[in-house]
């Protein structure tokens, strides 16, 4: 399972603070003009993280941490729709280190995260650093990338944008 680091700069975690835990409700990425409702997803029978039921909302992996909790929170979103139009994460790859990602939870708190790394993985990878990194508070965003494989009905790669917790503000 090869992986290619696009950029490996790790931002300082000095700004880390703590956040109350709650279910994520909306994902906001100001740079990409994304404001998407968050669905809860589990595992497919094949053991893959499941995906949201449409191409405009995103899916939070409910078996893992919630955004702002210690551990790795994971959210995925479609690259494209069945009709070929753009999915919510069509432009996820244009995020750069230092860009901000926000999550509002069901209690109204907004947790902010900062992009610190992007990586591509093979389509069938099981990377522990995406799901099981517990030495901080992380939010990892996933979508497809690479070349479409008709036989597998899958793109050949997965793009993961790693973000680290910055702060939580309560409205």
């Amino acid at each position, binding site marked *: 399972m090869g992986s290619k680091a696009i950029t490996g700069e790790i931002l300082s*975690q*000095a700004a*880390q*603070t*703590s*956040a*109350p835990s709650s279910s994520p409700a909306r994902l906001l990425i100001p740079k990409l003009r994304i404001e998407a409702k968050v669905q809860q*997803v*589990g*595992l497919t029978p*094949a*053991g*893959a*993280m*499941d*995906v949201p039921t449409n*191409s405009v909302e995103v*899916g939070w*992996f409910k*078996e*893992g*941490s919630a955004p702002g*909790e*210690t*551990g*790795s929170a994971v959210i*995925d*979103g*479609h*690259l*494209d*729709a*069945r*009709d*070929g139009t753009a*999915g919510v994460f069509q432009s996820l790859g244009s995020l750069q280190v230092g860009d901000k990602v926000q999550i509002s939870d069901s209690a109204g708190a907004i947790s902010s995260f900062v992009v610190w790394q992007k990586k591509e*993985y093979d*389509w*069938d*990878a*099981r*990377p*522990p650093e*995406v*799901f*099981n990194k*517990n*030495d*901080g508070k992380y939010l990892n965003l*996933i*979508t*497809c990338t690479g070349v*479409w494989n*008709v036989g597998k*009905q*899958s*793109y050949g790669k*997965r793009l*993961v944008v790693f973000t680290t917790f910055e702060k939580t503000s*309560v409205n």
Partner: protein
Amino acid sequence: MIRISSFLWVVPLIALFLISAGFVKAAGPTTVGLSTTTSFAVLAGSGITNTGPTTINGDVGSYPTATQTGFGSVTLNGTNHNGDSVTQGAKTDLVTAYNDAAGRTPVTTIPTELGGSTLVPGVYTSAAGTFGITGTLTLNGQGDPNAVFIFQAASTLITASSSNIVLTGSARSCNIFWQVGSSATLGTSSTLRGNVFALTSITATTGAVIDGRLLARNGAVTLDTNTITKSTCAAVTTTTPTSTASGTPTLPNTGHGPSLPVSPLAALSLVILAGTLYRRFNPRSQVSSKPTASRH
């Protein structure tokens, strides 16, 4: 011929290097039981005073003096036990936890200043009986999420403005314990991780963030625009996916693929099919399509 005994002095030096570099992992201390103090983020003996907007994620209480000042600007995500029986029980358990942490051995004596250093699991004290953090202290759990760090300060813990504690190698704030023989003062905009057991008082100055607990036995806890979140070890256990054989899911398939264009070949096939069907079912077409008699 070189005498082997002339090199024996190297052996302890190599061992010291391996241990200090983290290549040799000694068994670390076990955790300090918090018992009923677990639910508390702030616990005091002679009251709690707050200034400015402070967020407390966990219970609060104080006994025998239950005074609370400035709580109008506190966002409390927990229960305010004031001086009730729950607080009283927690205060008793705090004494037990304090004495447990204070009595742990073996103890490694390190410099008072912790900033800029990286420590592995263990029990630490300083010759002066004080600890301070200026800059960043890194605690490396060496891959063990149950790694425990105990700091025994006979008198004070004082952290500087904007000081920080970074956790690496699976270290967790719930397994960090600061036993302070007198009082602890946390600098402005600093971040402290772990459970502070102070015999007397604890002061968190403006903007300090505590990823752990502030538990004062006899004195007051003074807050100023802080965020205090009680850290629990159990939460991490539930965050590890265990539904798959490898413990880690496969990455999701978030693509539908490009929409299929109508290729020229497919279009030609549709035209031929339509023409065939038209000739098959249209009587006029069938008559006209009958073969003509051959001429002789």
